[in-house]
């Protein structure tokens, strides 16, 4: 879509705000609607928009698939490790009460951490699945649709 000037300019303006909104939904999930899953989907949507407008090859250079693969695994691992961290305080698996001396603070820290893990995984998975599909065909001309 190299010649779509309007789309390029508008998406260049929009993408930073979509990512910023994703971060807001991620870290404000305790207080307003949202959380890791929604935030991950939003950030991935920004990555996919970038790939649609500027080409998949350029998107692959900006968002390295190798790094994204590590991110996807790291998110799940972070979630699982928070569960184990509760063992140290003497609690059950994923019982955030035991993460910190104060139960409520422990819950807050636990929820924000696991949501961050989910966000990492969802962002990386959505972007990688899109790259996998989009990498199968060459660029398609507008007339081909």
């Amino acid at each position, binding site marked *: 879509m190299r010649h779509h000037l309007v789309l390029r300019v508008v998406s260049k303006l929009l993408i930073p705000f979509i990512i910023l909104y994703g971060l807001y939904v991620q870290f404000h999930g305790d*207080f307003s609607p*949202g959380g890791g899953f929604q935030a991950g989907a939003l950030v991935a*949507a920004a990555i996919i928009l970038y790939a649609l407008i500027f080409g998949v090859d350029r998107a692959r250079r900006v968002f390295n698939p190798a790094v994204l693969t590590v991110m*996807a695994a790291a998110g*799940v691992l972070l979630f699982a490790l928070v569960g184990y961290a509760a063992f140290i305080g003497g609690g059950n698996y994923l019982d955030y009460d035991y993460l910190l001396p104060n139960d409520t603070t422990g819950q807050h820290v636990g929820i924000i951490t*696991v949501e961050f893990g989910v966000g990492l995984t969802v962002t990386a998975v959505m972007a990688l699945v*899109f790259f*996998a*599909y989009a990498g199968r065909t060459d660029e398609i001309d507008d007339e*081909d649709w």
Partner: protein
Amino acid sequence: MEMFVDMVLMGLLGITAIAIVFTRHLFTATMLSGAYSLTCAALFVKLDAVDVALTEAAIGAGISTVLLLGTLTLTRRREKAHKGFSWPPFVVVAVTGALLLYGTVDMPAFGDPNSPGMLHVVPEYIAGTRDDIQIPNIVTAILASYRGFDTLGEAVVIFTALIGVLLMIGRRRPDDEESGTRRPERRP
């Protein structure tokens, strides 16, 4: 007014669904399914399920539409034409639909605080979120804390799906160029 919004949204959903069934052009069907998801998201906002609406708008209207388009580039653009009308699927759909409609008669009213679903663990979660977890968004508290196991399972499912996709179509091998995928033929 609320009734009017409901009726418009539900009507749009119905029209979009029927249009998806009847169109033979797969590109149109994909775009319409995106519109369907967006209408669904509006309906979820109307039902005060903003968390679900966010997900529906981003996943249903955004990412899955793009993925369906990606799939379309690997296959034909038009559905094969069916000849004639086959009764068995119609009977199955009609009977299932009638049973589902019959089932809604026994459902509690929307938002009824005395419905069985609201009386089981929900009061405990609401009180616990207020007193123990102390965050305003009960959905997040249930999702990440009370139902932490389930959410961990979901994260693992998403990760497993990624592994499956990457194993099947993640790498582009040179022999694909000759046999498997190729540019879809141009339509005149």
